[in-house]
């Protein structure tokens, strides 16, 4: 029976697909574990550094250092978008690209010219296809991002801010709330916003002095914001991939169940027909 053979072939193909998606789910689960550990390991440093920067920052210092510059109006803004190098992770990359496009439309509506800096093969391919100009195209940052990679990514952008080419820097990346919840988020990382509620550090012994410490610490602060964003993004990607592959595996199971039912029904129909033919044949002989 050609019908049942066809169904059998499809069952085999779906089984193979399910095997692949299940393996990818397992791989993503183990990578997610390691990536999540890295996310939690970066947090103490990031939180403590943020506290120190907020404590030292005062608007009066902004006159002296280019990195503290507070432009009166934004004319040009850098958008740094972090996506994944690989697909098959659900809407992860699409969500980030959508967030970045929304931000750029918003900036244009406020008469601010956006410029794109992109990390991740998926967004690079997307914006290249759309013919958007990108000033940075990075596809070499992997699952385990390093501080050096963060520096090489943000360094040139920071320089553009310091020299006044851009008046603001926005960072679009995934927030790693949990493995299941990784919404895209936009943060303005430059100019630096002091936290007005942070306790001021004026009762400290400061060596060498507040402004020198700040001048030294700020580049590493900005770099660290990008570094933690890269680390969180890597974890979020694995989380998204695990969910996507789990759904794919579950769906494949459902499809298989239906196909098997169809196959068995076809087989049973064939047997019934053969019996009917035999019975009919022997009846005709009597």
């Amino acid at each position: 029976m050609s019908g049942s053979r066809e169904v059998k072939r499809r069952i085999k193909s779906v089984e193979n697909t399910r095997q692949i998606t299940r393996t990818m789910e397992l791989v993503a689960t183990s990578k997610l574990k390691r990536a999540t550990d890295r996310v939690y390991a970066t947090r103490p440093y990031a939180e403590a550094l943020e506290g120190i920067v907020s404590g030292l920052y005062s608007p009066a210092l902004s006159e002296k250092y280019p990195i503290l510059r507070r432009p009166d109006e934004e004319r040009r803004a850098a958008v740094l978008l972090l996506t994944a190098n690989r697909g098959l992770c659900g809407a992860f990359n699409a969500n980030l690209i959508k967030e970045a496009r929304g931000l750029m439309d918003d900036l244009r509506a406020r008469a601010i010219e956006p410029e794109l800096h992109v990390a991740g093969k998926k967004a690079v391919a997307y914006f290249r296809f759309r013919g958007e100009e990108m000033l940075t195209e990075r596809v070499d940052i992997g699952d385990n991002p390093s501080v050096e990679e963060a520096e090489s990514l943000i360094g040139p952008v920071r320089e553009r801010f310091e020299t006044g080419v851009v008046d603001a820097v926005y960072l679009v990346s995934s927030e790693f709330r949990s493995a299941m919840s990784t919404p895209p988020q936009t943060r303005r990382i430059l100019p630096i916003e002091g936290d007005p509620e942070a306790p001021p550090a004026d009762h400290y012994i400061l060596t060498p002095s507040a402004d020198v410490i700040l001048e030294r610490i700020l580049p590493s602060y900005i770099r660290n914001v990008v570094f933690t964003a890269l680390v969180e993004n890597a974890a979020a990607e694995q989380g998204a991939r695990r969910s996507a592959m789990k759904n794919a595996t579950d769906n494949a199971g459902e499809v298989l169940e239906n196909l098997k039912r169809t196959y068995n029904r076809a087989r049973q129909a064939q047997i019934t027909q053969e019996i009917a033919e035999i019975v009919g044949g022997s009846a005709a002989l009597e």
Partner: protein
Amino acid sequence: MASLTVRVASPQATVFDGEAAAIVAPSWDGQVGVLPGHAPMLALLGAGVLTVDRPGGGSEAFHVAGGVLKVERDTVTVLTEYAGDEPAPEGAFEAFDLAEDAED
């Protein structure tokens, strides 16, 4: 006996988190020692060895490079660009332009 609560963190990891009797850190202009009861302080770090003396005797040492040291109410937070058992790789922190103008 009063002791310090010390946390040493690099961007990638927390390398030390615990009690200490004293610490000696490589500040931007030389070694700086911190004992319990130290006044609040923020200091830039250079590159060198950070020593943490345990309350019960014995000590631990880490190589650190760059970053900042914060002391407040017997809590010491060391945030460093690099922390590990080996000295920071030569030239690795040039790009971050830290700790190179100690003679200023």
